[in-house]
């Protein structure tokens, strides 16, 4: 850590050099993602270089120890921040080894992190895995430089984990320091073997995936100089992403997509300016963090490891797509379900897992009907995917037809067609083609069509298309309340562990929210956004609390049903009612006139002229005692206010009419002055309930 630039003197920093060589926009955008991670520091005096993943020996007046650097970044309150995780020596925890065999130079990784001062850094040491360690003989020349690490443990030496391969572990760190840290923390935090295995599945899946890479590496990578690990990293970047996928038909990469500008990458910490600095208050800070992590988890965009409550659909999709890929055949699947029932996310998960299992034996493309401006553009997208070139849609159809019809062996292509109803054209040719191609014997095209309505094929599509759609249909029913509750709880589980239940959402509150949503739509997005908003409301309330009240809570804050209710009300409260409550007298009078006319004629649409006459009569016949009185208190005459010195229409009549139309309270049909038709756009009851309470309208509301 160097809190000022001055303390940084004697050091240099630079970013990963190799990235500058390949400066296409495409590469740059990815490069930038890991900008912070590739920061390397160099000491001028002896050329010592440190970066993320380096193990260093640290010494100051009090202690001398080893640490693993897991974060180097330009900080907000300090110039440069170096964070590291401490190691424990085998000698430090001899009492807790419980009969484990340890080597002399063995280190134990702990999840305890600290900021490291640059001046305290002594030197770099090498840490290796067991295999390597065994291969090297330890003698006096290297005893201070070579260490073995294969276990993690807690800060006090408890909870020693199963052994792991250092190299692999180390790679994870380089790839994703944040995740690495949490992994270590989780590993050491829970002692049971069962949770250990589940927690470490990220590691094991990584191991598995690596094997697949090795299997397919000859075809995928010409560059044999790359080490396996680099390949693995690249692989992770690449799997399934269309932009980096190799296509069967080789074309110059640069032509494949249009250049697009990239966003300048700003360190998110830089943006955090005041917000974080202000609350130095140590008590408030962790709570604010908790709230923000809870909000992040509740946001629909949050990444999930598993999808609760969609196992059945997942299973079905997975098996049918897998079979099709393995057999290299074409297929259509129709998936339906109301919005927010997890259709798209389930399909993506299926593809992701298939990609992990099979490597890149298939391609994947997403076409969203609403993300295209015309249905025909779907051809262009598919064409670009397959041939890597651009083409006009008209030309593309022909070429695609030829391509799918040819007997040449093709790589299976999975196409997800979201919002299917938007790709519909009048003669339905686009859909026809997309469902026809899979039926060709060697097309290897798998189309997963997604739409909201179950009977879309029967309702909108002609028989020739719906017959091609096939029999595989999958229905995603709306979530019921227990499923919704499970989804919410699942998302909050992880933060519950981290914060040792300091921020709790009352289970009653969760149930209320899920029942509320389940009764209407079963839309998971809706349920989550209600909870998210409730957490925000609760946070606001928490921040307002005094120190004493905060202390009384004992560090535990619960989101109550009341917060959920408030959140629900924000999105369901009747806007019309509160608008009418604030409406001026003339506007009310107008609406009363419309109502009276409807009652008189029994028809919902009445001419403007008749309403004008109705109002005219109403004002003449009724006294409006209340209004009169309050106006007389202001020395104003009733008729003067009503007509504004005119005789035939209310004052500002046109203004009111226009406002009502703009606000969507009434609909006006036609432009022919008095003969245009006026119709209420809201329920009559909504008006009457408000106006019956208004005693100024007592005479006309009955």
């Amino acid at each position: 850590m160097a809190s000022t630039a001055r303390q940084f003197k004697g050091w240099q920093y630079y970013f990963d050099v190799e990235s500058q060589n390949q400066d296409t926009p495409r590469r740059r955008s990815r490069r930038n993602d890991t900008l912070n991670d590739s920061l390397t520091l160099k000491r001028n005096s002896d050329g010592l270089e440190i970066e993320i993943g380096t193990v260093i020996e640290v010494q100051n007046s009090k202690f001398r120890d080893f640490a693993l650097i897991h974060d180097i970044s330009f900080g907000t309150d300090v110039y440069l921040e170096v964070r590291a995780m401490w190691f424990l020596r085998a000698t430090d925890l001899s009492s807790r080894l419980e009969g484990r065999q340890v080597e002399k130079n063995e280190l134990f990784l702990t999840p305890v992190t600290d900021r490291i001062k640059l001046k305290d850094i002594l030197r770099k040491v090498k840490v290796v895995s067991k295999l390597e360690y065994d291969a090297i003989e330890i003698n006096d020349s290297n005893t201070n430089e070579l260490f073995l690490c294969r276990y993690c443990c807690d800060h006090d030496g408890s909870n020693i984990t199963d052994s792991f391969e250092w190299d692999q572990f180390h790679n994870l760190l380089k790839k994703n320091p944040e995740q690495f840290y949490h992994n270590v923390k989780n590993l050491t935090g829970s002692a049971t073997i069962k949770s250990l295995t589940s927690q470490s599945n990220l590691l094991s899946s990584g191991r598995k995936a690596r094997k697949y890479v090795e299997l397919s590496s000859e075809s995928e990578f010409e560059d044999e100089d790359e080490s396996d690990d680099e390949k693995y990293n690249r692989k992770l970047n690449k799997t399934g992403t269309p932009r980096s996928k190799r296509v069967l038909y080789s074309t110059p990469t640069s032509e494949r997509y249009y250049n697009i500008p990239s966003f300048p990458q700003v360190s998110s910490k830089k943006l955090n300016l005041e917000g974080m600095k202000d609350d130095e208050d140590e008590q408030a800070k962790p709570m604010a963090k908790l709230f923000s992590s809870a909000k992040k988890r509740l946001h629909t965009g949050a990444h999930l490891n598993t999808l609760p409550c969609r196992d059945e659909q997942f299973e079905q999709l997975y098996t049918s797509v897998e079979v099709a890929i393995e057999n290299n055949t074409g297929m259509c699947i129709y998936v339906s379900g109301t919005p927010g029932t997890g259709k798209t996310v389930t399909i993506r998960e299926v593809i992701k897992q298939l990609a992990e299992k099979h490597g890149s034996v298939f391609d994947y493309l997403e076409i969203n009907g609403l993300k295209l401006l015309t249905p025909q553009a779907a051809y262009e997208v598919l064409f670009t995917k397959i041939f890597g070139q651009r083409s006009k849609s008209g030309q593309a159809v022909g070429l695609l037809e030829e391509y799918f019809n040819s007997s040449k062996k093709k790589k299976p292509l999975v196409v997800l067609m979201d919002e299917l109803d938007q790709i519909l054209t009048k003669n339905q040719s686009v859909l026809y083609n997309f469902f026809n191609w899979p039926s060709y014997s060697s097309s290897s095209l798998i189309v997963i069509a997604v739409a909201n309505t179950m009977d879309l094929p029967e309702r909108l599509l002609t028989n020739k298309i719906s017959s091609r759609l096939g029999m595989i249909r999958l229905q995603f029913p709306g979530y019921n309340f227990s499923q919704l509750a499970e989804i919410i709880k699942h998302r909050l589980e992880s933060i519950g562990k981290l914060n040792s239940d300091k921020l709790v959402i009352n289970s009653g509150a969760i149930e209320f929210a899920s029942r509320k949503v389940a009764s209407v739509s079963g839309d998971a997005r809706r349920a989550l956004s209600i909870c998210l908003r409730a957490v925000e409301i609760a946070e606001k309330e928490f921040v307002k609390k005094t120190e004493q009240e905060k202390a009384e809570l004992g560090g535990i804050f619960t989101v109550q049903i009341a917060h959920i209710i408030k959140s629900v009300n924000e999105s369901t409260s009747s806007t019309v009612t509160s608008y009418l409550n604030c409406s001026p007298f003339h506007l009310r009078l107008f609406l009363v006139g419309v109502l009276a006319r409807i009652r008189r004629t029994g028809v919902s649409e009445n001419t403007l002229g008749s309403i004008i006459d109705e109002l005219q009569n109403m004002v003449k016949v009724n006294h409006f005692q209340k209004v009169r009185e309050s106006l007389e208190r202001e020395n104003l005459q009733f008729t003067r206010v009503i007509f504004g010195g005119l005789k035939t229409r209310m004052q500002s009549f046109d203004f009111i009419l226009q406002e009502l139309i703009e606000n969507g309270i009434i609909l006006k049909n036609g432009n022919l002055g008095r003969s245009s038709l006026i119709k209420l756009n809201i329920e009559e009851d909504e008006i009457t309930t408000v106006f019956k309470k208004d005693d100024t309208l007592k005479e006309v509301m009955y």
Partner: protein
Amino acid sequence: MKTNLVDVLEYEKDNSPSRNNDKVSTTPALTDNSQLTKDFAGEFNSLRVDRMGDDRISDVFKEKAKVVGNKSGVTIVTNGANEKKKENDSPRISQLTAFNPEEPVPTTTIKLLKTQVLSKLRRNSQLLYGLDDHYRQVYSLCKHCLNDLQSRSLLLMGPRNTGKTSLVNQVLAQLEKEHPKGFITIKLNGIFQTDDKKAVREFAHQLDIKLSQLAGYDTILDRIVSKDKFVTVEKKNITHTLESILRILDSKRLQQNSEDEIKGNNIPIIVILETFEVFVNQRQSFLYNLLDITQNGSSPMSVIGITNRLNTRELLEKRVKSRFSQRILQFNKATSLEEFTSICLVNLLASVPKEGQPDAATKSYFEAYNSRIQELLTTSSPLRQKLVEIYYTTRDIVQFKLHCVPIVSQLSELSPLPGDLDSAYNITSLLRPMCLEDIILKGLSELEIQLLISASRVVKDQCLENVNFNLVYEEYSKLVKKFQQERISQMSNFQSSTGVVASFNVYEKFLMEKCWETLITKYLLLDINVSSRNTNKSQSFMFNNNISSRSVKFYYLNVTLEELSEILDRDWAKWIQY
């Protein structure tokens, strides 16, 4: 029609800061505006010279002219130039400890106050009053987007002139102060971006501008000219434009493997959609895409919609609705007369200027003005009556502000404080929009009124929906002939003492047809085939047609006989009642 035009102008003004670099055709309108400003500044100066003379009548006349001028110029006496004046003038102000109505107030001080208050009254944006909670909510939402890089969506809803747009603009200005260049704002307006394609194009265009600004260039052109390798988001082809927007903002779509790689963009974007209902009325694909980005969390983007349509939420398609947080912030008009009064008061009060060291005299004058305004608004006065009237009719704050403009601009050395001068209030009556009565009484000749009455009689007697000229002319000549006979009989019996001078001759058809056309141009007769918006077009077409087809064409009469009898005075009773 006229109000619509003014609306458009206002919207252009609203958008002008963000569209400085825009090629869109708003520029002529803007230059037009500044031209007006210049013109008016000239007038303003000449006024000042004139006022040295003590001619009060001319003064009032000039004020009138000024009001008219103001209406077109909208914001004239606002910034820069006037502030300079303030600084120059302040040393000359004489010393006064308490305000004394007898002693003259220097013109400069009055001008200072007038400048301030008038700019307040004419400003397009609303002063926020009683919207603290709303402000906090919008602010915290944006802050959230900036700090935690989280996406949210919100809809501001409420009738016109309740401060929706002004509030958003203030929040943005505040954020811009706190995080200069820390985020991107994109403003779209349904009035300009009438369909999804235009919206996509404009979105890309503004994104380009903002990105170049972030990279340190003033305009896109600068950036293209510079050596910096730069490609725009906006492409020639609209499909590609949409694609490139989605590719930089919606990285999740590209199937990422693990969470840490989804980092496509971490610059917060705040999208403001004014006249939100327009985006709702179509295929909603633009909204779908925007809201989808906010939901899948691939880039930190918050969407704030502004609308005055209360049922906007119901108009959203199901899948769009599901992606929208459905959070609504409602703006309402004042609920009580007291609240309305205090809103009006806020708009009318002056605050003692801070710069240029105001002396005691200025201060006391400003205070005297404030207390006078307070008195006018809270106790019974013409201004108070106007306020109550507006409260009962529309509760529209802009209407009140308009009424105040002449009152404030009439302040002068002679009357440093607003009094009960009738002239000021009379001017306000001119500001009333044209209504049926004005059109008939002030805009029609005697023959035209005769024809109008005949037409309404035809409608009434024969229970017709529509009338044509031939029918009406027949009725007209019938009536006139009857009156002629009556008159002859009267003449023979005794000398008429009333001395009715109206000659009862049946005018020829071609002459009456001219009158008929006047009625059409005044929208008293509406073409049943063409909507009134296109009437001008149909008229030019009509003049080319031959007479016979013109005289049989049917029109809808937009006034009834009853209404005419209310409007017209007793002289016409004979025509109506016969």
